[in-house]
């Protein structure tokens, strides 16, 4: 039997919790990190993963979340700097195979284009979608 996919998500806002619920429902092992314990109420009642209360920019917290063993790391906090920093640590230090960071500032997607971090920028995605739909 194939090993279960292990996903670490930092930031349990709308994006983070939505992702965590999806991965959990798909049968992946999920760890979610957020400094605010209230944020975990966004997780479904059948969420089967773990939650860690802590700041993702603290190295000790990333270690506790076993980022080094993860197949996928998603940085989905509200702060671009936190997301890019954690993602870089996950990629460069923990050698996570796939690392995704959400960034709000489209310019940052340009600046980090040549790194091996995958960037998800809501403004860029929705703009692309808008132009694709043949406006």
């Amino acid at each position, binding site marked *: 039997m194939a090993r279960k996919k292990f996903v670490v998500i930092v930031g349990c806002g709308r994006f983070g919790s939505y992702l965590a619920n999806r991965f959990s429902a798909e049968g992946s092992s999920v760890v979610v990190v957020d400094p605010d314990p209230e944020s975990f109420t966004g997780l479904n009642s059948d969420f089967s993963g773990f939650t860690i209360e802590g700041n993702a920019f603290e190295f000790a917290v990333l270690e506790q979340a076993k980022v080094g063993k993860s197949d996928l790391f998603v940085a989905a906090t509200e702060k671009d700097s936190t997301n890019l920093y954690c993602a870089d640590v996950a990629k460069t230090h923990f050698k996570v195979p796939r690392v995704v960071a959400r960034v709000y500032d489209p310019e*940052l997607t340009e600046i980090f284009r040549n790194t091996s971090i995958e960037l998800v920028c809501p403004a860029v995605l929705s703009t692309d979608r808008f132009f694709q739909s043949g406006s």
Partner: protein
Amino acid sequence: MRTCIVGGGLLAYFLSRSLLSKGHSLTIINRDREECEWFARRLRAVIVHGDGTHPAVMEDADSAAADSVLAITPHDEDNYLICQIARLKYGTPYVFALLNDPDNEGIFQELGIASAYSSVELLSQLIEQRIGYDAVTNLTPLADGKANLTEVLMPQDSPAAGRAVQELEFPEGCLIVSILRAGRAIIPRGPTVLEAADRVGVVSLPESYPKALAVLIGDRVV
């Protein structure tokens, strides 16, 4: 040298004053409007109001022209991003990050920011170097404070133990003036041989002091 400082508080203020006095031309990025006004009244620097983690603000501050970018905000992840924008977008030759979490020093270096220092780490090193070594006592100023009298307890592994005063590679500007050995005071001459556990009185100029100390107690301090 064109330097860009991102951060605030008295740290940014005093650092700016020090760099200005050394002839740097300075830009300060700060996200607090009132603090920007305070800086603008007191410093001959270009003050940019905004968040340094936003590339557009770095652009406004003409970061492309900076030789060095110093990120000294209270948030390590912000300092990371400021340095990365400078490196990746502008190829800034020298970037510096102040770290709050000392554990991050190694990580920042791994991420390509070689000059990342934690104030906690620096302070503890300074304390160890300057005052932490309890073998050094009695710092008494002499000659209008331009020279100091210090007593140094020679450790068991002192490189000077078993050697005559005249054989020591003592730097210019310092002199061994007394030895306390087993409760007895000795005023040494050139041939006097030093022993471990001697308490040695040294008169020195401040600039020669670290070298003199190294001769007596080895590399552990300087």
